[in-house]
């Protein structure tokens, strides 16, 4: 009886092979012709027969991502990576899915894993540098882009990325050279944004606003132009206009960290604490573990009498960042609110010490 069953299974498997291959062929045809929903269905059927088929999993992920079904796409790529952890295409595709859903630090992890497998790949390098920029890791972005600058000194995209990283890293002199190179190719939104960033660093708010207005006029869809315009408006105390600029940026890029975070700050300032909390939590989804966001959430919790929750968050924060002055300040306030006077006094002593250290450093810097 057992041998009959085995024979039947073997026969059905042999019969299924050509059918499966035909499913894959149809799926690819549908995918190539832009019929993504049919392609997804056919890939899924094929994978029931061949669950370990790497190419099919990768293609399924791509079709799902095209349809905006990023969670399912990520699941498909992760299945592919379980089968072959160093599959470069699956790593890059997974990174792209993370990137498109604003999960920048996860995108960076995948790209870092992919880069040694694709060392000369421009797309991977530039995307990784862009992730570093978005995460505020400017030095890493510069280190990645430096070797490429020698190879393609006139590439506008590269100059723009490198210039942005240099200016944001306050490497003004080198950044200015890159800006000049961009400007030598004519006025552009990118060059204006870079100039504005340099001016913002130098606290020339009015000058920065002028350049940002021009950048937006030249290219209203330029990534981060509205966000930087918002920052300039915040510096000028024009919070209503700043909020509008940040919202405009989020229209273009719903995962723009600066805009989400700054809208949270404006909501907090206006005492719209629910909105502030929601903005900060979304910011945290883009920059997981970001100390500045964690701190802002704690201050909102403190302002809304969730003192115990604020305490827990602040204690974790000062443990991870012991020199975070503002977190110690708020923790002292929390302890006094909780009638833990000795703990409050201890935190205040830490604040005094940190302030004195800062003053000493400042004096030494002069």
């Amino acid at each position: 009886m057992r041998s009959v069953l085995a024979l039947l299974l073997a026969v059905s498997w042999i019969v299924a092979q050509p059918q499966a291959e035909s499913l894959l062929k149809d799926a690819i045809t549908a995918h190539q012709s832009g019929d993504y929903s049919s392609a997804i269905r056919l890939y899924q059927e094929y994978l029931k027969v061949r669950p370990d088929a790497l190419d099919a999993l990768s293609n399924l992920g791509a079709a799902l991502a095209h349809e905006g079904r990023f969670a399912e796409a990520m699941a498909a790529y992760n299945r592919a990576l379980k089968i072959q952890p160093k599959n470069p295409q699956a790593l890059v595709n997974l990174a792209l899915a993370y990137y498109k859903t604003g999960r920048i630090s996860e995108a960076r992890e995948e790209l870092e894993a992919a880069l040694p497998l694709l060392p000369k790949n421009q797309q991977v390098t530039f995307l990784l540098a862009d992730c570093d920029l978005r995460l505020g890791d400017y030095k890493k972005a510069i280190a990645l882009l430096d070797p490429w600058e020698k190879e393609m000194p006139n590439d506008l995209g590269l100059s723009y990325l490198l210039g942005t990283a240099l200016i944001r890293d306050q490497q003004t002199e080198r950044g200015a050279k890159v800006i000049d190179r961009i400007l030598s190719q004519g006025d552009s939104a990118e060059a204006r944004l870079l100039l504005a960033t340099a001016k913002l660093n130098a606290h020339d708010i009015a000058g920065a606003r002028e350049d940002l207005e021009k950048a937006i006029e030249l290219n209203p869809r330029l990534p981060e132009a509205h966000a930087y315009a918002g920052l300039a408006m915040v510096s000028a105390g024009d919070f209503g206009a700043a909020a509008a600029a940040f919202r405009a940026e989020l229209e273009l890029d719903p995962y723009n960290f600066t805009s989400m975070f700054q809208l949270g700050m404006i909501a907090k300032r206006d005492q719209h604490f629910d909105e502030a909390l929601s903005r900060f939590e979304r910011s945290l989804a883009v920059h997981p573990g970001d100390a500045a966001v964690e701190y802002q959430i704690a201050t909102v919790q403190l302002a809304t009498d969730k003192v115990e929750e604020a305490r827990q968050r602040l204690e974790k924060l000062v443990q991870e960042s012991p020199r975070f002055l503002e977190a110690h300040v708020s923790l002292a306030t929390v302890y006094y609110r909780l009638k833990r006077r000795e703990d409050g006094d201890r935190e205040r002593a830490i604040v005094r010490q940190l302030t004195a250290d800062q003053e000493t450093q400042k004096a030494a810097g002069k």
Partner: protein
Amino acid sequence: MIRWFLLAGQLAAWGTASAQECGLCHRREAEAAKSSPMSHALQPARESDFLKNNPDLGFRSGNFVYSVRGEGDQLIYSVTDGTTSMNAPIEWAFGAGIVGQTYLYRRGGAWYEASASFYPEAKGLDWTPGHAGRPHRNLEEAAGRKIDPEEVRRCFGCHSTGAIWGPASGPEALTAGVQCIQCHVGADRHAAAVKRGDAAGAALPKLAARETEELGNLCSKCHPSWADIATNGPRGTGNVRFQFYRLTNSRCYDAADTRIACIACHDPHGGLSEDSSTYDSKCRQCHPGVDTRAKTCPVSKGDCIACHMPKVEVPGLHYQFTDHWIRAAKPGDTYPN
């Protein structure tokens, strides 16, 4: 009982928890409050004594000339670069004028803080704090700083009482200055209960019974707190203006001990004593050795604050502030931050 009944009748005739109302029972506090700086923290510009008594004020900075002059029943703030001028009626005068008085005007529906403030010590106009360093590239920038609606609300929120905001950018109604209900939250409920003759419902928590830190937090609704300054600065002598921050940094500050609370030395209902000896008795609450932790001064038996709370002048503010960071300050010592 009869007094209670009569009181309820009088209260019913007035509004809810106005200073007049509160004064029916709390006479001493209400009388003292009439002359307190807090109750004069805001005035309609035409009622400002400084502006009334100095009808033609002016100062010059670079190309710009600033002036305040009376015109009919209005006070006009004017800035000119010699070619063009900006003129706007001043609507509100902020500050009782112990240190200075700052003015707000409106243009095109938006509020502006005038770049020039009045300083009694200087007997004239000078830069409003923070304005000297702002860019003054054109007349509008030179004249004042545009204030967004939220900041305007905060200004009036601290300097007035019961401001009602309509759809327009300004307050529709308010009582100028800090009135009872600003600190005594629930005073309106208390007054209503008194009107009803409901003695139990009239109970109001005594603020003086709070611990130092709690009282500090209450004052910090308007006076910047230790946390505000510790987080955002300013550093240097500019922070001498923020008394609670300075006091909290003192060695003798104790978050629970009310002998070091703001109201231990300052009567929130009354004026500010300029006679330094009046504060000696406050220091003696701890320092004759009653408290074993507190030292007795080896130098003097009086005028404690002359040495322990030195006067510090903030550049541009024409005023010597008392440094509330209590310490043995010696000439030439570095200003502690």
